[in-house]
């Protein structure tokens, strides 16, 4: 018996990964990003959420390599006197939490509905897929913006900002699940007539057990592929919503609200307040997209055209 580790070492997956320099580099960058996000409270030079650390006299200091820069603030400070580097670490952390949470919600809704539609078939399938079709006919960003606008008007700006993290997770989760439902349904349709499902049925397992214990694990490869891309898209949606003012407040910023807050300062020459968080976001989304592309090629060559 080979151990799992040995199996992994000899797998095509690892072989393909080692051969692709872009994938390796993206993976390393992504891991660094994740470590920075997780350890943000300990490695950040200052805590940008804590008003006591912030000194308004330090506002709009340029990055340290520029004329008026100070070595205390490597990437400069924003208009409130917060250290840019620290706000970017914390912002990344917030963006990742919301992005992962939202995609987990999307995957949960999509998997449950797609699995039911694909396995049960008939009327269930027709109704569920019609709902997915209808939602699909509205662009996900429009859905997200509409839901966010309704929530904001309903809750009032104050409570919306207090509840921003869970609300954004729910909004982005609700706005983009049909893609999971469709993908999982397609692979379930392919699996459900195979012998092992037939065997499970003959043994007399309940439908529920067959669906979740037998069919689901074998249909997950396709979900893996879209999961990565969806995280990138969710992080972008969060940034877009925050940029529009439907997201994290400036006192607890995500990357989107940092860009929003710094936007007006490019006119007065303080470009670093908005450009650094922007680049930070672009690099993060870029490595996820590159990894997603690679994963799609390796796991599912047939899907390549996408």
């Amino acid at each position, binding site marked *: 018996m080979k151990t799992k580790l040995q199996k992994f070492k000899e797998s095509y997956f690892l072989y393909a990964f080692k051969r692709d320099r872009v994938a390796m580099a993206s993976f390393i960058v992504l891991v660094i990003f994740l470590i920075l996000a997780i350890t943000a409270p300990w490695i950040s030079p200052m805590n940008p959420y804590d008003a006591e650390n912030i000194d308004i006299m330090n506002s709009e200091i340029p990055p340290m390599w520029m004329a008026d820069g100070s070595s205390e603030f490597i990437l400069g400070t924003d208009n409130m006197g917060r250290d840019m580097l620290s706000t970017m670490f914390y912002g990344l952390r917030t963006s990742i939490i919301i992005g992962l949470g939202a995609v987990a919600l999307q995957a949960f809704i999509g998997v449950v509905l797609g699995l039911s539609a694909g396995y049960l078939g008939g009327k269930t399938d027709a109704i569920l897929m019609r709902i997915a079709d209808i939602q699909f006919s509205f662009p996900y960003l429009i859905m997200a913006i509409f839901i966010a606008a309704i929530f904001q008007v*309903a809750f009032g700006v104050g409570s919306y900002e207090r509840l921003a993290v869970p609300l954004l997770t729910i909004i982005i989760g609700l706005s983009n699940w049909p893609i999971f439902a469709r993908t999982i349904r397609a692979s379930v349709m392919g699996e459900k007539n195979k012998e092992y499902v037939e065997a499970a049925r003959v043994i007399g397992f309940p439908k529920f057990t067959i669906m979740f214990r037998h069919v689901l694990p074998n249909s997950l490869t396709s979900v893996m592929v879209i999961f990565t891309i969806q995280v990138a898209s969710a992080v972008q949606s969060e940034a877009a919503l925050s940029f529009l003012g439907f997201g994290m407040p400036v006192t607890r910023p995500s990357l989107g609200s940092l860009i929003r807050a710094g936007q007006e300062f490019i006119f007065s020459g303080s470009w670093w307040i908005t450009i650094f968080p922007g680049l930070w976001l672009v690099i993060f989304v870029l490595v996820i997209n590159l990894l997603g592309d690679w994963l799609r090629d390796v796991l599912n060559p047939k899907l390549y055209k996408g």
Partner: protein
Amino acid sequence: MAVSKFGKIENHMFAFIIRRIIQALLVMMIISLVGFAIKNKIGDPVRDLVGERVTPGERAEIADNMGLNDPFLIQYVRFVKHAVKGDLGRSFLYNKPALEVIIKHAPATIELLIGSALIIILVSLPLGVYSALKPRSLLSRFTMSFSTLGVSMPVFFTAILLIYLFAVNLQVLPSYGRGETVDLFGNGYWNTGFLTIDGLKHLILPCISLSSIMLPLFIRLIRSEMMEVLETEYIKYAWAKGLSPARVWLIHAFKNTLLPVVTVFGVQMGLTFAFTILTELVFQWQGMGFMFLEAVQRADTSLLVAYLVVVGSVFVLVNTIVDILYGFINPTVRIAGTK
């Protein structure tokens, strides 16, 4: 036999159209219900009508006269009846009928969409075709690696970078507003920026920002479709006949890549519409998106609801028409939904 077969196809088509229209009506009902619920539970119709300076007694009387104390369902039916006639309530922010406010703001957004659609078509077609024909050339490889970067750039960040470069540093292009516009029909509804130099200058940066997110996708799509077509038998046959490369590439191959590209183009213009909201915010562009954000900020629920209903209806209408047209072109679509 042929006649009955033909008749059967027509029946299918008819049933398909009916089903599709029923679905559209259902979706419209859901949209109007959501809209009405917002208006009923959150909005304040009395304030929309007479403002804040009214005593509580008068308010109650006005509310009663307006039927605001009627049961939910009766009020909903009234809302739908008014909506069908084009009365979507009054915007207190503009002190005008909400629909009129939206219609006045629509041209700015539509011009933004037209401008970026033009850029997408003019740039992605040549680049996509070229990188399919010469996949190993330097330009193709540059285009392909640039396109992944392009997908990862949020529209608003592209917009900010463009403003920083062209408006703040080089000071060659304006950074906000629509500039000088011309009243197209002389009735004050459609002010176009396409007819003045200043208006065109103001269009450049917003349109580039808006098209930047879709360009990579189209270049890739056109490239992959074109490469696939180039592998088919009939292209080999065309080469064997000794046709000129230009003829094979443009007449035989390119024409057949267009159908899927046009389909995706339609879908993506919907998403582009969502991105206009972001673009309009960065450039202070007085279009529907900017108006919508203002309505949310100032809690102008009537205008917000009117916007939801109008945008929702346009999407449902366009989708339904496209689906029905598709049913005529592609029989599998209408058969698939029958069971």
